[in-house]
């Protein structure tokens, strides 16, 4: 395994069919999705478009499965030098940075509407004049319950944020429990990592299983909250800027948790199969980085969407 002399071979795969067919899958998926959205907007049948999209999604998923299998197989065959493994580490680190910036766009939008757009619509400062002329009745409060034009954007009945700072309130406040669940899961995935490094496979499997379970519980609670939001609070995607920011921030976070839980579940299967070694388990480590990242995003969400 160790390098002979000063130089290790960097494994450059000769040719690969994976990316080209992944591109085909990707383009079918998004083209079909775009066509389906347009069909629905034009009140036409979206059946054909949906099938195109599903075909693309299936092809893409299949290729990605093959792709990861290939990479794992190569690593098990000892083809990956230490230097190549570092490329994967850099790749994952910068991928997570790109995800951070994706969420930054939505947090930035939330910051802008809360601190500028909504106060101006309410008539505050020099920029308030147009808001005053268009919708004089609109009062700038966050969360926005009364929309400037509630004929276009139905008002929600009630907001979902913290409006009472008491133990009794938090005890019944679902996002608070979700925060606890995610923070706990960050700790359990760390325990799994520690067990892995100590060559304790049983510990690894147990802690990882606990983490996956916590992820699934979080998603169930999140789904429950959405049902409550739509049914009980009247808070929907089209109920104005509060619903828009709420659902896109929590929704994209939920999507990432779904992905993270799936990745961790794959890692659990791989752990059971005995794929990981104490000194060679970047697949697991990357998954745990990703998981810590979605946890940190949630903490930001909890603070800026629910608390303040």
């Amino acid at each position, binding site marked *: 395994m160790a390098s*002979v002399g000063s130089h290790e*071979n*960097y494994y*450059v*795969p*000769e*040719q*690969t069919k*994976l*990316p080209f067919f*992944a*591109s*085909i899958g*990707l*383009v079918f998926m*998004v*083209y079909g999705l*775009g*066509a389906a*959205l*347009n069909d629905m*907007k*034009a009140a036409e049948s979206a059946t054909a478009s949906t099938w195109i999209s599903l075909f693309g999604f299936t092809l893409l998923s299949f290729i990605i499965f093959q792709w990861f299998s290939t990479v794992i197989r190569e690593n098990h065959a000892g*083809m990956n030098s230490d*230097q*190549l493994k*570092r*490329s994967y580490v*850099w*790749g994952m680190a*910068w*991928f997570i*940075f*790109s995800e951070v*910036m*994706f969420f*930054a*766009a*939505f947090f*930035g*939008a939330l910051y*802008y*509407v809360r601190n500028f*757009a*909504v106060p101006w*619509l309410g008539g505050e400062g020099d*920029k308030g004049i147009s808001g005053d002329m*268009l*919708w004089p009745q609109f009062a700038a409060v966050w969360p926005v319950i009364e*929309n*400037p*034009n509630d004929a*276009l*954007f139905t008002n929600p009945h009630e907001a979902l944020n913290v409006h009472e700072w008491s133990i009794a309130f938090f005890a019944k406040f679902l996002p608070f429990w979700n925060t606890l669940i995610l923070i706990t899961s960050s700790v359990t995935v760390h325990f799994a990592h520690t067990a892995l490094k100590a060559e304790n496979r049983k510990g690894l499997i147990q802690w990882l299983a606990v983490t996956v379970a916590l992820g699934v519980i979080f998603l169930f609670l999140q789904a429950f909250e959405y049902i409550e939001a739509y049914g009980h609070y009247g808070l929907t*995607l*089209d109920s104005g*800027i*509060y619903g*828009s920011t709420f659902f*896109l921030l929590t929704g994209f976070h939920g999507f990432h948790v779904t992905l993270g839980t799936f990745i961790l579940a794959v890692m659990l299967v791989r752990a059971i199969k005995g794929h990981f070694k104490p000194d060679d388990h970047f697949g697991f480590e990357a998954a745990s980085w990703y998981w810590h990242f979605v946890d940190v995003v949630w903490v930001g969400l909890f603070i800026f969407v629910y608390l303040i």
Partner: protein
Amino acid sequence: MSAAHDDHHHGPAKGISRWLFTTNHKDIGSLYLWFSFAMFLLGGTFAMVIRAELFQPGLQLVDPNFFNQMTTMHGLIMVFGAVMPAFVGLANWMIPMMIGAPDMALPRMNNWSFWILPFAFAMLSSTLLMESGAPNFGWTFYAPLSTTYAPSSVTFFIFAVHIMGASSIMGAINIIATVLNMRAPGMTLMKMPLFVWTWLITAYLLIAVMPVLAGAVTMMLFDIHFGTSFFNAAGGGDPVLFQHVFWFFGHPEVYIMILPAFGVVSAIIPTFARKRLFGYDSMVYATASIAFLSFIVWAHHMFTVGMPIAGELFFMYATMLIAVPTGVKVFNWVATMFRGSMTFETPMLFAIAFVVLFTMGGFTGLMLAITPADFQYHDTYFVVAHFHYVLVPGAVFSIMAAAYYWLPKWTGYMYDERLGKLHFWLSFIGVNVLFFPQHFLGLAGMPRRIPDYALQFADFNWISSIGGFLFGASQLILLFVVIKCIKGGKKATAQVWEGAQGLEWTVASPAPYHTFATPPDPKLIHDQ
């Protein structure tokens, strides 16, 4: 050693599969460059339609909606399809050779970064054939034009932008991993060629802002299809929010298109001045400063939108600060040429034209940065002239300079110098006739993105159009020169240019399919 089979290297595969399934950085670099050139011609064709319509006042060739589709598609295709992929192609070809690496760090992902692009642009271009027509809201796609009032093809535009963003992010991750992890022993950071440095910083910018663009188009998608109100004040949102998110991406984006150009010019000028680059360290720091500043100047695109006065002032001063590191760079290029023994081969001609004309574009940028003055210039042809000066004789000239400079290394043959010079002079004259009069048009008040105009603008417009046709036609010479150079010609030596420095000139011409499978001799790595 477990990996015995990669001790012997294969050449390229035969037939079309070489290009579809390749993991070789040189093949992928060529794919990017050819794709970019195809998009350059397509976007150029749209520009010809624009200039033809504007040749005379009145509506003669196309209807206004189609004109808007042309300006939109021209901008999108040139930015995302021509300039960016060209630089990624150059990075693919040159970075591994410049740092003594066997290939890019993640070769399979490299193939994917490329191959999703043609599909994305096929989808984007197909909107021209759709019933609703192509996107018609300008390449900056401001809401509500791009949401409430958009043609239904906007959905495909949104997904095309998503794919382009994914391509850029994957490409950038690959470049960062390559530069940080694959340098040959002895290639310390401060010994890297400036092209590698500028690309490292560009890649960082790409990873930082392409996701923000994805966020912007995602908000659009939800506003259009799912009833959200990010950009609709009736629901408590704000169309101006779109502009903030867009330009937070958009301003770093313009540096994404110019920093690698700085790297190219910093490689070419020392070669043909036969002197080392003046002020290498300051070039690195200036590049990093420009990248940093690019994140805090975005709202200078929005001076007239109605920002609080503190915002106007902050963005004005921050923007002007950019002139400092940019000035350092221009100074260094001129100082490199100063008392050098210069020759004027085609790459050098393009590089010198770059320094002069990019600087002009920089100065008009400084004029636009002055908030009160910008109230006059905003959305006029002065802005069009400004950014075309930095992008065409700026970014595009640097790409052409790079193509001529490295063509002998890529093909193994010298290009036709006489035709190269002809291409340069026609392009140089064409581009100035095309864009210089647009400054006057803008100062006189002609708005951008209009198919018809008042009679007072007629003269400068026909001059501009003549320049446009000349510039457009001249680019076919480049195509001819490149094909001729691939077919044959005078054999190129490994060194190619007398004054060239760097690892890429230590390998044979054409560069073997695999280079630096074992790292180069550290003695070959010189201080910059």
